[in-house]
């Protein structure tokens, strides 16, 4: 058997090319992208609203004012109650599971596409980078919108409970009251919400994308959803 020209090594694509392909994909799949992003938005909105609501409650109690409606004994004692912790943890879990689920679904339905791209010469790393970029963008935009919606919701709720006093004592920045728990402030809560949404989206999509990219193309293309 004759030895022909040796098989060369596949080149890496420039970053701009990956960026272009991933944005093109988001744009054409706009409807589906919106649904996936909405999953992230909802999760983060829920988490941030509960968290901000708690921050507002604590700040107002520190200032000596109390909700006209919810005067739980436990909240007046300690600022942050077990009920609040429970709510935050629950919302965090809902957020994690919701985002991971929506990203997993979005990638799994694209296994065939991953297999096809590998048939055409895509490196595993390129496939993963594509999903990383797409999900990072979806995660950040979804989480930012979610965090803003969540904050708005908490503010409206606060207005109902505390009236206009809310704006005088609004916990925008971090604070450390003398006899109370550390307060993160709403800006930090929004920021954390955004980071969390983005990290969850990126992990939720890159992990299955990495797994699919590692599969031989024949197997990836066989996968039925």
């Amino acid at each position, binding site marked *: *058997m*004759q030895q022909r*020209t040796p*098989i*060369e090594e*596949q080149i890496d694509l420039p970053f701009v*090319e990956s960026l272009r392909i991933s944005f093109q994909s988001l744009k054409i799949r706009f409807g589906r992208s919106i649904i996936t992003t909405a999953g992230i938005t909802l999760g983060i909105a829920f988490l941030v609203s509960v968290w901000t609501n708690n921050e507002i409650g604590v700040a107002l109690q520190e200032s000596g004012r109390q909700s006209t409606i919810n005067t739980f004994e436990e909240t007046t004692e300690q600022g942050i109650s077990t009920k609040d912790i429970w709510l935050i943890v629950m919302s965090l879990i809902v957020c994690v599971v919701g985002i991971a689920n929506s990203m997993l679904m979005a990638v799994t339905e694209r296994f065939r596409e991953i297999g096809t791209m590998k048939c*055409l*010469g895509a490196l595993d790393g390129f496939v993963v980078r594509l999903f990383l970029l797409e999900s990072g963008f979806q995660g950040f935009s979804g989480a930012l919108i979610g965090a803003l919606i969540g904050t708005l919701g908490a503010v409206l709720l606060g207005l109902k409970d505390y009236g206009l006093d809310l704006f005088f004592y609004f916990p925008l920045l971090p604070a450390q009251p003398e006899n109370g728990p550390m307060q993160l402030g709403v800006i930090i809560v929004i920021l954390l919400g955004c980071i969390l949404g983005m990290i969850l989206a990126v992990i939720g999509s890159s992990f299955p994308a990495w797994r699919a990219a590692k599969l031989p193309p*024949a197997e990836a293309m066989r996968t039925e959803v």
Partner: protein
Amino acid sequence: MADIVVKTEDVVKEYRMGSNILRALDGINIEIERGEYISLMGPSGSGKSTLFNMIGALDRPTEGQVYIDGQNMSQLSQRQIAAFRCHRVGYIFQSYNLLHVRSAHGNVTLPMIFAGISERERNERAEKLLDMVGLGDRMYHLPDELSGGQRQRVAIARALANDPSIILADEPTANLDTITGREIIDLIKRLNNEQGVTVISATHDLKMLDVSDRIVDIRDGLVERIRNRDEIDIEVGEVGGEGE
């Protein structure tokens, strides 16, 4: 000495189905010459698509070796395999496997993007290829806006994007009506004749017999027999005679 482009040595492929092991290929030995048009024939489940995947480096054999252009595929790095898929082989699938988010033009340019070809050059080449397969006027349509035959033409144009020396076609006509299927076969045969591309096709479409140089019959994961074109012509005639 014959110029062998594909050679398989005792290729075995096993799939694990729960606690059972399914032996899809049971020691396949074939040699394919450059410029040949080969059809892998066999009923569903015979292993022809599995063999197709082995030759195209789309899956790894459990045992045995596949040599393409004299290179042992199991010794290639991940980057070399990607380059092999990108430059040496063009794949055509039964279900077209086009990317639905990219237009016909976008599908054809993708392998060229992976090959690092400049934007201007790939646009020119994609237009030329789509013209050649008769889709010059539907270049910017999405696959969903095209008929089955048109989609398969896009897939053929895409398979040719990086000027491969081998075309691998897995049941390319199975989802098409008779006339469209015929057109696709003629197109592939033309590439084989005019450009000297080696064509390896898994099929059970009898129309494919006509254009093949050799037919490899696969049954139960083994090569049952290899027939050349003369024998095929006689058999096709017999089949026609019986029907009358």
